[in-house]
Structure formats: C-alpha cells, structure tokens
C-alpha cells in the first residue's frame, strides 16, 4: 500500500481538495477500489481461496504471484467471468477442481476484486478497471 493517500489526508490539503472531489482516477481511486474489492473477495472468493489467498492443498490454487493473477488482464478477467476447470499447475502442484463462473458480478465488482487480489497476498500489479472488464466481457459475446 505504498501509494495509499487517505481521503482525509487529501481533503486536509487545501490545494488538493478540488482534485480529490473531481474523483479523478488517482491513488485515492486505487485504495478505494482495493477496499471495495476486499469486500467482494470476502463474499465471492474467500471461502475457496482462503483469507490469506493461499488456497487449499491439492484442491484450490493460491492467488499468490501466479501467472493468472499477475499476468494478462484478459485471461484473468475471463477466469472470473467464465470460471475455470481442467488441470492446471502452479509451482509443481496440480489442481483440477471446479471454479464456477462469476459472470453475475458487475464490471466494477470484478475490477475491484481483481485489483484487490493483484495488490494483496504479496502481489503487486496494475489495477484492473471497470472499463477494461466491460471490454473483455463484450469480446466474449462475439
């Protein structure tokens, strides 16, 4: 959370008030997204991938520095939209259980939860935006 600048801190700096209130996508936007994403994670992902993102041995893969989590955003967003099954391998461990599609989540919820995951559990990667999710979802329909 190196980039974290709380809203309160921003508001306390008169020169920045206008900037913060315009809601431009800046550091504050990232922390907000992570905060919202944490809630989505708790409701939608935690029971399987666990509080620490470490998954369950032989069963549910970790969300820690995997090629899905840190890699190409479209693949990652599609994992959430379409779910995943078939055998996958992470650090020599194989997994083959079912992850259900989560297509009922909104673009913003998916963006938030993936931004949270990409900035938690020791991960560090760029945020995913709702606009990107929207585009990736639209591509699926063609």
């Amino acid at each position: 959370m190196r980039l974290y600048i709380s809203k309160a801190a921003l508001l306390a700096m008169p020169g920045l008030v206008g900037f913060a209130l315009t809601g431009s996508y800046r550091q504050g936007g990232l922390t907000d997204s992570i905060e919202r994403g944490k809630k989505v994670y708790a409701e939608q992902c935690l029971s399987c991938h666990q509080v620490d993102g470490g998954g369950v041995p032989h069963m549910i893969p970790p969300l820690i520095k995997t090629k899905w989590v840190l890699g190409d955003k479209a693949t990652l967003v599609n994992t959430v939209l379409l779910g995943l099954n078939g055998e996958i391998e992470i650090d020599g461990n194989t997994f083959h259980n079912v992850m259900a599609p989560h297509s009922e989540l909104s673009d913003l919820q998916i963006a938030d939860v993936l931004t949270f995951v990409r900035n938690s559990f020791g991960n560090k990667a760029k945020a995913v935006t709702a606009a990107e999710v929207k585009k990736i979802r639209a591509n699926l329909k063609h």
Partner: protein
Amino acid sequence: MKNLNPRYLYLIAALCGNAMLACGEDSTRVAPAFVNEARAALSGGLVLPEGFQAAVFADGLGAARHLAVNNNGDVYVKLASRKNGQTIIRLRDAKHEGRASDISGFANYKGTGIAIKNGYLYASSDEDIYRYKLDAQNNVISDKPEIVVKGLLSRGEHEAKAIALDDDGNLYVNIGAYSNACQVVDRKKGSPGMNPCPILDSAGGIWQFKTAKLNQTYGDGVRYATGLRNVVGIRWNTATHSLFVMQHGRDQLHDLFPDLYDSKQSAELPAECMYELHKGSNCGWPYIYYDQFRHAKILAPEFGGDGKKTAGGDAQDPVVAFPGHMAPNDLLFYSGSQFPAKYRNGAFIAFHGSWNRAPEPQKGYLVAFVPFKDGKPSGEWEVFADNFSGSPEQTASGRADHRPCGLAEGPDGSIYVCDDNKGTVWKITYSGK
C-alpha cells in the same frame, strides 16, 4: 498429573518451572498448551490419550492417501503424487524398531484406494482398480497388475476412488459426484438444482463389483447405494457384516444462499455423516442435507429449501453426525486386542481438516473415535489423536503441517495413520504407561 505418562514428567517438570502449581492435579481436564507440546514432542508430534504412544514410521512420502497393512506387517501406502516415479510405497520395519527401514515402491498411477485381502493387493487410480497377487513369501508381484475395474467417471471433483472389500468376494467403490449440490452450473450462485439429479446415474454413490472378475466396467457393477455426494472413508465392518461410509457434506451454503445462511451457520452445516449401508440405500444427496442441531434432514436450498423445511423421508438417517466440513477421509473399525477394551469394534475416523469453514476458524486435522456396542455407537465421538496441524493457530488458519488421510490396523493391533500433506506415517501403539 493423572493423564500424563510418567516418562514425560521430566519434560513437563522442566517446562513447568516456577509455574509448577499450575501443572498440578487441579489443573483443568484440558491440558495446558505447553503440556500438550511436551506430550506431542514425545509422540511423533501427536497428542494421544493416556497410555498411547505414536512414532513416525516413515515420512516425506508426499500425498499419502490410504494405506493397508499385510499380515506380515508390511505397510503399503497409496500416493496421489509420485515419489521417485512411484505411487505405491512398501514400508517394511526390517529391524523391528518401530520404523520403516526397508522402503521400496512400484506402480505409477496416482490415486487413493488400497486394500489387501485373500492374497491380493488392490489399488485404485481415479478411473481404474488394479490388483496384484502376493507371492509365497507374501511379497507383491508388482510387475503383473491385473485390471479389475476400468473406466470409472473422474471429472476433476470428488474423483478419488476409495475402495473396500467384504468377506464374500465383493469390491465396493466410491464414485463421487462431480458436483457440490447438483446445480445446473456447479457452485454458481443462482443456478438451480437439477431434479431429478442426472449425476446419480453414474456417480454420487457406492458401486459394487466382484474382486475376482477382470476388466469390469459400469455395466458389470451394481449401484449398491446412492445419494452420497462423496465418500473417501469406506470400510466393511466385519462385526456387523455391513458397509460403513463417511460422507463429505456439501459446501458453500452461505456463498450460494447468503440470505438463508450466515457464515457461521455455513461453517457448521451440514454435518459430516457416517452411514451404515445396505444394498439399495439412499442417503439423500443432493436433495437434502443433515442438520446436526435440528437432528433432521433439511431440504437443500437448491431444491426449494429455506434452511428449515425438512424432507427426504425415503433417505437414511446417519449413524453419527460430526461437525461440518471436517472432511472424513478414512474409517477403520478396530478389531485388535492391543488397545483397551473400550476400543474393540469401535470406529476411528481420520478427519483431513476443513477448508470450507472460512472465514470462521477451520477445524479437524485429527483422528476421532466412536465407541461401538452391538453394531451401534455406544457413546459420543471423541478426539483420539490430535495436533496433526502443528498448533491451534494452524488448525484455525488451515495451514496445517499434516492432514490425516488414511488409517490401517496392523496384525499386532497397532494402528497406522498417514498424512497427504507431507507424507508422514505414524504407528500408534498402546503400552498403558
């Protein structure tokens, strides 16, 4: 100090130090954490009732799922991973020191099930069941497996083919449902349950085959029992002459129905159930689950349930109902005479440990015991062997060091437990001291 082995006294005394008073007779029945640690240190990391000892028989085997002991004391372990390219490991205590010194292996298919009977060793992959003849010296003829059953369903969920053998030449196989609750889309919120559930035609039950017939497929088998979501602990009870199983109950009541179940209820429900099966038994999955607090079969929410409505009049009641999600992965009826009389004919259950209780603390990672009399439980279940996880914190987080998965009884009445996280095998004995 009445529940401590005198051999541990020096250790306890050292640990107690100035706090000696707190370690006295008057301490509560639950031993203080450091006492448990001291006891565990002397018992291969495990905490056991007074008079029992555990020793590490072998370790580092990998995903050690089930195990079987031959009448000469050789222990065979089935792996769901490969150790030096092999998936059945023979552990021989060649020096009679309570520890395997002669370790060898064969086979290369991953799987869970293993059993020995009438001169054959049986083992399963996630699709097939093989058998190996034992030679005159009681060794497995490992290069000549025969296929007993082939082509069973394995769809990436509940794929382990746990097996059991009766005394009449029958082989029982769990074919787990490739689903949580038979929804149209598995585990997807809002996806309805399929009624009737088509999975039950080929999975979600126990199938019976012949031990002596080769190359059997579905058509040769009989669906012996249905309505079982997934079973890993399965055992023929030679006292009751019937099959007992431990069902893994459904997951995710809160995830899928947050308006009906909070995360606490979802962590506790449904019960992990022991069933006694007979030909034609139906245990009710996916339409109902068993609620151990209401002592009732509850209509599953995918099929119109609201958490209270009961249903499943034609489904069996469990013999024992355990807390939710503890994942019973093996079941053993004790037939030896080494342990005290209380244990004779009773059931040991290896609880692999939960994952689906999060965000509530996880539970399990233990071996439980249920006393039996006249073929029925004669008391409450209790913890027999504990501390597989390494600490209460590791139990709560689910980051357990060891996850008990297999149980077997040796010819001398010792029991063996294996773990599929690190591949440790313990031998548990009773000396009364």
